[in-house]
């Protein structure tokens, strides 16, 4: 697969040209935090960021989006019939995404894009998007990607991996889409030996700084019902306040709600992020709630990510180690701690 080098001083003009061809999204400083946004000018992008506050999942699965529109006007022969809301599915580039976040989309694909059902919005956005990732030279202290099967230089979820080698960026394509992307960039230079060496050293340094914090294999090997009935959930759940922060900032939390809204004589069917932390998530019309207790909801979140998902899809956990939930949980529930509890050799019910 091909690779090129672009010096940092030339990068803004390369980016400017790219933005002339298609919409480009990247990490932008918004207030005090970085979020992914549409770049209006090349200088909007801030590639010196650690990671965004929210995951970039909204680029494929917006927090709220209209699915269908309908008329409710009396006498309209089409009243009550849902019509797909028109959307912009033009090809686009997401630049500077972290390898963990890109890997998350692949994990989410298994939910949205299956043999039997394909989610039209997710699939079309995935098809039309080129992911140009930015390797993590200095992973944060809450990062644990190397413990969950990805890494700071992981290319698997990306079309192109960018490495900041100091004076410039090394671009390495790993898919056909990535090749096309590189072919379209002007000002690309051949990659010198020293750049390649530097990138390699950065990779080794970044990966080496992280280590393995818990064993995913041990969790997968523990029987589901033993984990489900384990005693430690009671301690894990105590501090949880059942807000949706962990799920909303998580790149692999895809659960959503569907709501109808009415505006006078028309309306929309909207889908919006939902959270297994909310009691309403599983609340039956009858009043019965299979997960009425906080413990059940907390357990569901971790079990889904680390046990049900690998079991259902035969491999991988639904966590990429981005550390957002660790940093943002208002009460410091740490998935690394929970994963260690789940991977202990015996979690047999007491």
């Amino acid at each position, binding site marked *: 697969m091909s690779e090129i080098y672009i010096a940092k001083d030339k990068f803004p003009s390369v980016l400017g040209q790219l933005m002339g061809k298609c919409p480009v999204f990247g990490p932008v400083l918004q207030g005090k935090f970085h979020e992914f946004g549409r770049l209006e000018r090349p200088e909007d992008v801030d590639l010196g960021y650690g990671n965004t506050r929210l995951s970039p999942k909204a680029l494929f699965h917006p927090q709220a989006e209209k*699915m*269908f529109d*309908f008329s*409710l006007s009396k006498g309209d022969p089409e*009243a*009550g*019939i*849902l019509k*797909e809301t028109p959307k912009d599915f033009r090809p686009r580039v997401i630049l500077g995404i972290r390898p963990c976040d890109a890997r998350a989309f692949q994990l989410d694909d298994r*939910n*949205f894009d*299956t043999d*039997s*059902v*394909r*989610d*039209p919005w997710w*699939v*079309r956005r995935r098809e039309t998007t080129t992911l140009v990732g930015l390797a993590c030279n200095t992973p944060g202290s809450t990062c644990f990607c190397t413990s969950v099967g990805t890494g700071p230089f992981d290319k698997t979820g990306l079309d192109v991996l960018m490495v900041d080698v100091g004076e410039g960026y090394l671009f390495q394509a790993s898919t056909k889409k990535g090749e096309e992307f590189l072919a379209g960039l002007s000002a690309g230079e051949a990659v010198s030996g020293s750049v390649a060496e530097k990138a390699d050293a950065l990779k080794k340094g970044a990966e080496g700084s992280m280590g393995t914090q818990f064993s995913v294999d041990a969790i997968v090997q523990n029987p*589901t*019902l033993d984990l*489900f009935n384990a005693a430690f959930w009671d301690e894990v759940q105590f501090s949880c306040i059942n807000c949706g922060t962990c799920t909303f900032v998580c790149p692999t939390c*895809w*659960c*959503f*709600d*569907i*709501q*109808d*809204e*009415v505006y006078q004589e028309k*309306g929309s*069917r909207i*889908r919006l992020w*939902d959270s*297994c932390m909310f009691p309403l*998530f*599983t*609340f*039956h*019309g*009858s009043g019965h709630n*299979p*997960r009425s207790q906080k413990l*059940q909801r907390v357990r*569901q979140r971790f*079990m*889904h990510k680390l046990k*049900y998902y690998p*079991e*259902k899809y035969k491999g991988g956990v639904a966590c990429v180690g981005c550390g957002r939930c660790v940093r943002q949980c208002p009460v410091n529930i740490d998935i690394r701690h929970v994963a260690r509890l789940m991977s202990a050799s015996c979690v047999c019910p007491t």
Partner: protein
Amino acid sequence: MNNPYLPYPVRIESIVTETEDHNQKTFKLVFLRPEDEAKFVYMPGQFAELSVAGVGEVPIGIATSPTEKGFISFTVNKVGKVTSHLHNMEEGEIMGVRGPMGNSFPWDVLEGKNVVIIGGGFAFTTLRSSIVYMLHPENRSRFGDITVVYGARSPGLLLYKEELAAWERREDIRMHITVDATTDPNWKYNVGFVPAVTKEKAPSADNSYAIICGPPIMIKFTLPVLTELGFPPERIISSLEMRMKCGIGICGRCNIGTEYVCKDGPVFTLAQLSRLPNEY
């Protein structure tokens, strides 16, 4: 790309109030477009999302059998926002249907077997579908004995009363209709709870499968009876309810462990359920 969230538009052909408390109504729906009807291929035990623009969707078991052509029916219990709205709708109005969804009762496995159907209250809808399906002249010879135990709190709360009476008159199906209690002097069927009636009628477990749908309390007390009669967990089949939104295994809320009730269910054997977390 086919959009699995887009309901097929249907017209409400008729609305029948099933029970004396007016909480159960059966909606007979006709597809507006023949091509949608052709795509809606289902088997008894499946469900669909009923959709009302501006109100929302609700998952409801399909009460008709695929042997009944030209329409589909749903018996809806008035509970929440969407079902209450449905109960206020009128014949001729347009709504939507999305589906069919979920697995069905395991018809390939049931072929050549005796089938014992046990139902309680308003959870009789997909059971009705199953009975109609099996009794169809083209299908009846594919199954052995058919035994039905169906109970409700009182005679007025039984669904599909005319059909029940018609089945009672047939030779090729054994009906045990029962009510918890009644003061009706003309009541000519059983009085007693479903578990007790099941025990009393003691359908044979030989070469048999049991399909059981009803309120949790009924299921709880009927399962030991079935076990006593010799039904192993692999041959006891049930259908679960769960809060649902997408109905196609994507939105994430209806899981029991690894299984999504909407896509991998709603039909499970007791053996399958025993391997899953007890969270339903």
